[in-house]
């Protein structure tokens, strides 16, 4: 397989998404509503009553990385719905009829999801700065956060495509998405520290990938303590490679 061609196909798929976003930006703006509510209502309220043991950071500082991770998770996990919709209108058939390798199409789609994630991250950064949330603005840290956002979106969107090849309908994907996001979100350290959870939930949280992503983002945006960062990123890359590979094998099932 020709690596240059492979990557160029993936980038072309992402370019396709970028062009669509450029033609219609409405979705980007609608997607900012939910994280904005979390920060403005939940974040500001709990910040005032100081109910959470968030150590040396204020509550709103604490949940900013959590909300960022959560909203990228939402985009990624529901990306399978977009792919099912594209199947329904024939776009996937068209893409799979080109000489581009299947895996490059799946990789490209996951890059497209991460493109949406990056836009989301930009918005949340802007919102946090507007609210006066204190975050570390070191350029390397910011780059690191974006790298994690991209990997995270790729990982979960390819998982979503893998599931879509078996679920095949938008309704089922909607159900699966909801069944996954809520437990992942509430059983993570996104909006409260692990220490306040009941013991059993603490165990769940330790195997929850979202916790590791939030952890990585917190270390770059707040603490500057990079102890676990390499492991976090390595785990994400590994999971992404596995999911993209599996989804490339199964994607043709969508057409059956």
């Amino acid at each position, binding site marked *: 397989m020709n690596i240059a*061609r492979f990557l*160029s*196909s993936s980038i*072309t*798929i992402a*370019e*396709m998404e970028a*062009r*669509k976003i450029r*033609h*219609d930006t409405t979705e980007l703006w609608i997607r900012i509503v939910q994280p904005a509510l979390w920060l403005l209502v939940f974040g500001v309220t709990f910040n005032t009553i100081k109910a959470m043991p968030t150590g040396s950071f204020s509550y709103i500082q604490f949940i900013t990385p959590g909300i960022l991770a959560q909203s990228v998770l939402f985009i990624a996990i529901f990306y399978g719905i977009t792919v099912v919709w594209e199947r*329904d*209108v*024939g*776009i996937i*058939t*068209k*893409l*799979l*009829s*080109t*000489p*581009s*390798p299947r895996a490059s199409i799946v990789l490209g789609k996951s890059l497209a999801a991460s493109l949406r994630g990056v836009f989301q991250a930009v918005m949340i950064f802007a919102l946090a700065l507007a609210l006066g949330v204190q975050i570390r603005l070191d350029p390397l840290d910011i780059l690191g956060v974006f790298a994690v956002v991209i990997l995270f979106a790729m990982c979960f969107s390819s998982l979503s495509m893998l599931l879509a090849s078996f679920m095949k309908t938008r309704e089922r994907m909607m159900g699966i998405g909801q069944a996954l996001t809520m437990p992942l979100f509430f059983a993570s350290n996104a909006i409260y520290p692990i220490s306040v959870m009941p013991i059993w939930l603490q165990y769940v949280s330790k195997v929850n990938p979202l916790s590791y992503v939030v952890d990585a983002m917190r270390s770059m945006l707040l603490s500057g303590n990079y102890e676990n960062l390499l492991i976090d990123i390595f785990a994400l890359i590994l999971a992404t490679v596995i999911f993209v590979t599996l989804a490339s094998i199964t994607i*043709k099932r969508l*057409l*059956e």
Partner: protein
Amino acid sequence: MGSSNLKSDNIMAVETKNLTKIYHGNIRAVDNVSFSVKQGEIFGLLGPNGAGKTTVIKMIVTLTHITEGTLQVFGIDSAKSAELVRSMLGYVPQSVSVDTDLTGYENLLIFSKLSYVGKKERDERIKEALEYMGLTERAKDLVKHYSGGMMRRLEIAQALVNRPRILLLDEPSIGLDPASKMHVWESIKQLKKQFGTTILITTHDMSEADELCDRIAIMSDGKISVLGSPVELKKSVGGDIITLNLTSVHHGIEFPKDIGKIIHSDEESIQILVENGEEAIPLITNFYRDQKITIDSISINKPNLDDVFMKYAKRRLHDEFSTHASSARRDFVRHTR
């Protein structure tokens, strides 16, 4: 590519042997089908809904697994080198599949990139394809504002940026108004003439097949029931029928057997079955002139592909409604979206 045997003429554009596709639930969509498409011809796959035409095309485009049998495109085994096979073909699916959230130009751009058209040729080819399909003026508009006919033409333009050696068209004129249909037909004929592109087309429209195809295979229930040129097929259902209106019918005249056979006669008209109407008419008029009988009027009735279709694709109505109604409905839903 580049290997010289690809170019040689005795290689078939498509060659299938015992091709079979069994979908989930034991549906034999394609059942032990063997046929070849010659280079440079327009080959038609005809058949009613659910006959298995789309499934054959999907196997050629490597979009669905082949259950049994083999399939070669220009001598390349599609099971072994799927990407190489896809690089030689252009595919226009049955239902609209251009991206309506992009412009016409962008659809072609993305597609040419995914087909690895070199950066230098890209702009030129896109421009040509747009011109060829008459879309240059609307190239910068979002496709969602196009008419159905324009989308179809864009779809063909998309399949052309690849400069395919074989173009696969799945019911290309479905849902088109007569003018757009003509436009599509003209471009198909031009492609063959100008570039020698091999074309495989599926349709259930007999006039379309008659108009375009060099050879036709009629499919029914996953099998090919007959294959030949339109002329051969029409001949196989019987010859032309000539109807004569005479001033007076004279019974008892022996009609020469080498011209044709009288199949019906009444008070003032006679119907004669002949092999070739145009050649038979002068002979018939001479014959009656010699007999001193005046002909008032004369008409030829040629069998059309509808007759061929009825003969070879006939199936019980019962089947049509039970097994295949659902697939027809699904197609309909997709077309109207």
